[in-house]
């Protein structure tokens, strides 16, 4: 009885969450006359790929997609390149103000993007980085870094220091210790941090909106939003764009989920 109630609840939640996506996907394959039919139909009577074709033929969707992939991947690489050494320092060295720094990092994450976007714009303009992908990557990195540091710090803390000490007495330099022992063990944490960063950069609208104006530089969220600005809003096309945006995120999740779920398990250390 309780299981049945639980199942009903889960089903309701799932429906609530998944229905808009399902509607988006079916709409992407509907011819335009079916999109506005009343009463609405869920499954198209005739499936069409016209919407997808229009998307690539009539808009710069392919450019936006390439921009998004470039910006999101660069953000992941840059964030990890800064956060991994940063979190290592915060967990492996004793220095004055270490705890203050950690607390401040979390505090800075509490600012909503909308609060810092204007100062960011001013800063980027001064650096002449407005309207460049590099500027956008820098902005995303700055925004993701507090959380990335905090997450990695927690992961690094959970890895026993003895393992690194064993490696160092075994003849490994500090860099080798990090590469051969710490990072393989912290892989789930690094992957989680990378995934988080990727999704944040992939989905962001506001930074891209403010920092980029040249059409050929736009990322997907901005590019798709601008499809509404056409005199005739082509819903079928917009829905197929939405569907395509989901695909890379799904792929990322499918690839990394096994790292997220399984660590190496205990065993090297007793206790």
């Amino acid at each position, binding site marked *: 009885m309780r299981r049945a109630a639980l199942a009903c609840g889960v089903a309701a939640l799932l429906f609530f969450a998944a229905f808009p996506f399902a509607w988006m996907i079916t709409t992407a394959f509907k011819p335009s006359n079916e999109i506005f039919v009343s009463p609405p139909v869920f499954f198209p009577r005739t499936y069409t790929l016209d919407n997808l074709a229009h998307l690539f033929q009539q808009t710069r969707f392919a450019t936006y997609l390439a921009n998004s992939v470039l910006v999101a991947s660069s953000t992941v690489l840059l964030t990890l390149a800064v956060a991994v050494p940063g979190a290592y320092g915060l967990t492996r060295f004793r220095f004055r103000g270490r705890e203050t720094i950690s607390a401040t990092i979390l505090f800075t994450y509490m600012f909503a993007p909308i609060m810092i976007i204007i100062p960011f714009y001013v800063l980027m303009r001064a650096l002449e980085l407005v309207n460049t992908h590099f500027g956008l990557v820098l902005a995303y990195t700055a925004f993701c870094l507090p959380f990335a540091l905090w997450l990695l710090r927690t992961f690094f803390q959970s890895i026993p220091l003895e393992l690194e000490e*064993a490696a160092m007495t*075994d003849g490994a330099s500090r860099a*080798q210790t990090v590469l051969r*022992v710490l990072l393989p063990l912290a892989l789930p944490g690094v992957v989680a941090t990378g995934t988080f960063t990727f999704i944040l950069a992939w989905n962001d609208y506001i930074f891209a909106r403010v920092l980029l104006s040249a059409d050929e530089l736009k990322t997907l969220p901005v590019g798709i939003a601008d499809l509404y600005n056409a005199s005739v809003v082509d819903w079928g096309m917009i829905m197929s764009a939405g569907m395509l945006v989901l695909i890379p995120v799904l792929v990322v999740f499918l690839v990394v989920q096994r790292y997220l779920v399984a660590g190496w*398990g205990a*065993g090297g250390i*007793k206790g």
Partner: protein
Amino acid sequence: MAKLVLRGVRKRFEDRDAVCGMDLEVVDGELLVLVGPSGCGKTTTLRIIAGLEDATEGEVWIGGRMVNGVAPKDRDVAVVFQNYALYPHMKVFDNIAFGLRMRGTSRDEVRRRVEAAAALLGIMELLERRPAQLSGGQRQRVAMGRAIVRQPQLFLFDEPLSNLDAKLRAQMRTEIKRLHLSLAATTVYVTHDQVEAMTLATRIVVMNAGRIEQIGAPAELYSHPATRFVAGFIGSPAMNFMPCLLRTNGAGLAVEIEGATLLPVPSSREPAYRAHAGRRLIFGLRPEHLAERAHGAPAEAVLSIEIEVVEPQGIDTMAIGRVGATELCARLPGTSSARRGARLSLSADMKQMHLIDPETDQVIR
């Protein structure tokens, strides 16, 4: 293999000294055990030798080279950690091979040496497993394999057996001893377990509160402890301590303990004790130097207790009672018929007695 020398090594942590001014020489091939209660600075000393901590003051010399400021990887020491510290993401083979690979040893040489070490430790069939698939004793062996495969100048063991159950601990203890006899490697071994220290050590360093209490061979520490701490720490069950008055007794000396008869001091000890006659001191005697007095035997040095607790241990039976206000433990043969509540008359082997100056905690010699 090499000689290890510590000169005036001190380690300060924020507000207290973990190690205060340690001087030590470990000769080539020796197995030196650092023993003491937790927090006595023994592990810190080991970490300073390994280079995992920097000494606040003092010098560390390994094989004639001062290694202060030298990174752990360049000290040519191997550490066996308390919780093994095996790399969980590597197979046993790779765990053992790690140190060799870090030093750029050739593939064939790595294989040959890992297999030789594994054969020596009896873990050949485990080489393809991961640490998570091993039992505690097996992990311990892998950790030792990782240390010996590199043939370092110095072995450092940090309480390697404290995570094992009693039976396995005894077995591994024997194996470590056998290993040391066959490799003749200079070794520093840290433990809080005095039995481990006694069985393994060439020499023992007893530490307390960051200081060396005494250095000596196991038998020497047992028979001639220098301080009250060493007297109480070495030996199990611990030595009995009783407040006493040392007084002249005719031509000789005797120990007067509240609630007991006078215990005559053997004449061989008189020259050392004479100067302390009339002082209040601590009388120390090990449980094994008390024996059940046979009926009608001469009442030379007798301590009488009412038995409160009997602890049979197979070969021995511990009888615990009180003399005056002080607890006294006697180690009796396993065949003893001692019963709780019975009165027990014990004859003390006064040749084994110790007197401790309560002001300095030094054993009077």
